[in-house]
């Protein structure tokens, strides 16, 4: 289909979304207003302290930490699609690589903020740098998240150089200063063999290096839990369990982004049903793996029923958390797997709907991992009011939780307005290869 188009047409198609449209302005206004409302909630938390949240001595992590894990998880998709699939020579994923990187960068950058928003005294973050001990998983977490954000930014930027040059040359309808910025950022790109080689070497190194880093950030995040001996966290498979769960959330996020970009930017010829079918299959694959990890993660303690574990498992399976637990497992994992095995369900619209359920399931799954465990400390709970024992988030807390989500969407929206979401240079090269 693409081979009927001239290069100029392709460039025009893929850069057409880089402009300030009415829809964009309305969407940005909506996001900004919502963000302001949520930031007001954060202001209240800063002013009055953590007392405005439902957090207490027992459940001190609550929704915020669930949110943090969700953000780190979603950001892992950059590594899966841009690095792993490209190293495995999965050509179909190439047009999606940039979308995945944009999501990765946005979510990883905001993940750090989520942690800071969880702190009653955000300025005390400095203590991690002043008094941090490298024996502590918190320090590893801060280190790897920072490294992952930097690497994701470079992984987005370096393959983008040729496209920046194209933008500076072909985008005639944007203000001159914007074109200047594109020229500047494109680092004198002129497509010499030397330059192409350097890009190839750099992305090669990045694709390899990003894999251990991405594994590290989510494994370390899982260690924040698994390195303690509490029921529900004390598990040896938490690292891989989190990583696979991350692929599920991230793949679903990419599907949503694909769908929206395709509709909003008229990219139907570039993101086709074929791509949806393929990524739908990827989603089944990672979901099946995640199901396997889930079975293992709950089966082993449920078989042994050690005292504290038994209490925890019963709360999840039949107790107060049962409705949420089964809803996430069935609506967010099992049903999507069954449906996605059917080919018609991997068409764009059904896949979008399924992916939204998967994302919701992924968020609540993190909640189920963080909160119930904290409600059952090993030491007896004595002489405390009921709201210490049973966690229920407040409205302010929910606002503070939504703020980072809006920020991530904002970053994705802005990035998609200033850079081509489908790699132009690679699309052209790919077409030229096919012509030969």
């Amino acid at each position: 289909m693409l081979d009927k188009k001239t290069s100029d047409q392709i460039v025009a198609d893929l850069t057409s979304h880089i402009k300030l449209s009415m829809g964009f302005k309305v969407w940005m206004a909506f996001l900004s207003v919502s963000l302001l409302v949520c930031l007001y909630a954060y202001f209240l938390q800063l002013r009055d302290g953590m007392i405005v949240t439902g957090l207490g001595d027992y459940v001190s992590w609550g929704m915020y930490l669930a949110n943090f894990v969700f953000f780190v998880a979603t950001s892992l998709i950059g590594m899966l699609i841009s690095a792993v699939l490209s190293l495995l020579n999965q050509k179909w994923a190439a047009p999606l690589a940039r979308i995945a990187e944009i999501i990765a960068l946005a979510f990883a950058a905001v993940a750090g903020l989520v942690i800071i928003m969880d702190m009653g005294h955000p300025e005390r973050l400095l203590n991690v740098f002043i008094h941090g001990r490298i024996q502590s998983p918190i320090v590893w977490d801060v280190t790897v998240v920072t490294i992952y954000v930097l690497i994701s930014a470079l992984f987005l930027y370096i393959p983008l150089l040729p496209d920046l040059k194209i933008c500076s040359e072909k985008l005639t309808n944007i203000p001159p200063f914007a074109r200047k910025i594109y020229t500047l950022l494109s680092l004198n790109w002129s497509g010499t063999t030397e330059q192409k080689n350097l890009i190839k070497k750099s992305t090669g190194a990045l694709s390899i290096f990003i894999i251990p880093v991405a594994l590290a950030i989510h494994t370390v995040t899982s260690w924040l839990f698994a390195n303690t001996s509490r029921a529900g966290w004390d598990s040896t498979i938490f690292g891989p369990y989190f990583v696979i769960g991350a692929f599920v959330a991230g793949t679903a996020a990419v599907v949503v982004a694909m769908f929206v970009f395709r509709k909003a930017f008229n990219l139907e010829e570039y993101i086709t049903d074929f791509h949806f079918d393929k990524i739908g299959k990827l989603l089944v694959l990672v979901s099946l793996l995640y199901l396997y990890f889930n079975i293992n993660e709950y089966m082993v303690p449920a078989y042994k029923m050690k005292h504290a574990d038994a209490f925890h498992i019963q709360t999840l399976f039949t107790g107060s958390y049962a409705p949420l637990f089964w809803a996430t497992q069935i609506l967010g994992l099992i049903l999507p797997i069954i449906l996605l095995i059917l080919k018609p369900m991997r068409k764009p619209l059904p896949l979008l709907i399924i992916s939204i359920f998967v994302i919701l399931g992924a968020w609540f799954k993190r909640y189920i991992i963080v909160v119930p465990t904290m409600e059952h400390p090993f030491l007896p709970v004595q002489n405390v009011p009921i709201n210490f024992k049973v966690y229920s988030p407040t409205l302010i807390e929910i606002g503070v939780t939504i703020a980072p989500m809006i920020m991530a969407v904002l970053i994705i929206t802005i990035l998609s307005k200033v850079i081509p979401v489908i790699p132009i240079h690679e699309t052209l090269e790919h077409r030229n290869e096919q012509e030969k």
Partner: protein
Amino acid sequence: MTTNQKYNQFIAFLIFSFVINASLSSRNWKAPDDQKDKNSYIKFDASTAAQGEAIYNANCASCHGNPGKNNALKSLNPIPPDLSSTASQSLTDGELIYILNNGAGLMPSFKNSLGEEKEWMVISYLRGFNKNYIQELSKFDPAKSKLVKLVSSFDKASNSIIVNATADEKNGKIAIVGAEISVFVKRYFGNFQIEKALKTDASGLAKFSFPTDLPGNKNGDLEVLVKLYDENYGEVQVTKTYSIGVPTDKPGLNEDRAIWNTLVKAPLWIIGLYATGLISFLLLLAFLLNNLRGIFNSKV
């Protein structure tokens, strides 16, 4: 009156007297009669009360709460009473010092951790909540304790500590007979008592057989604390160091490199691992930046 009525009356009487009885003796501890009248040799004043308050907050408030605030630890059985209450204030000074020395049920003894002087100070603080309280001082003269000579020595043959208690009275040195002697070894927290308390014999001596397996410092030094309590001479204590412990030279738990230690004492493997990760990243960064420079400088 029918027999039935009589019977009912009898039951009512039983129940009534039981209730009265229970309310009179709801305490499940009782000071022996000869201890009830014991009085403090320290005069209670603002200064002793202030010192007592600090001791109370550190040792008692966790269970009893603050006097008059009704914030005792309710999960204990019985609930520790509010010590400013009329019921507790109706106890004599002798009864108060008795329960502090001996404990009762869940309430621990403070005899060894506080000692009599500090116990009186707490009582001085507690009496501040009782407007009607008038202190009766003990006839005991604290100056008398200055006369006491308490000497301990270690007898190798029998492996025991021998304590000799004498007093330098005006009419010469006399043995203190029947005084209560306790021997302790100091440890990180509190004291470790050797055997039980003994009474001095007719020549003022008491003999405590000493365990052979107590860990000392590098040289086997142990700090031995000897306490004397006597009606007449009050409380006297002396400490002395003996090299009779098992020499132990273990580094403190925080002296070696360990996960739980400070940054400078982190285990080498973790420093290595962390540094390797960081350095690899910096190398990659240098490589990438150099490539970007190459792209920037590339000529067509």
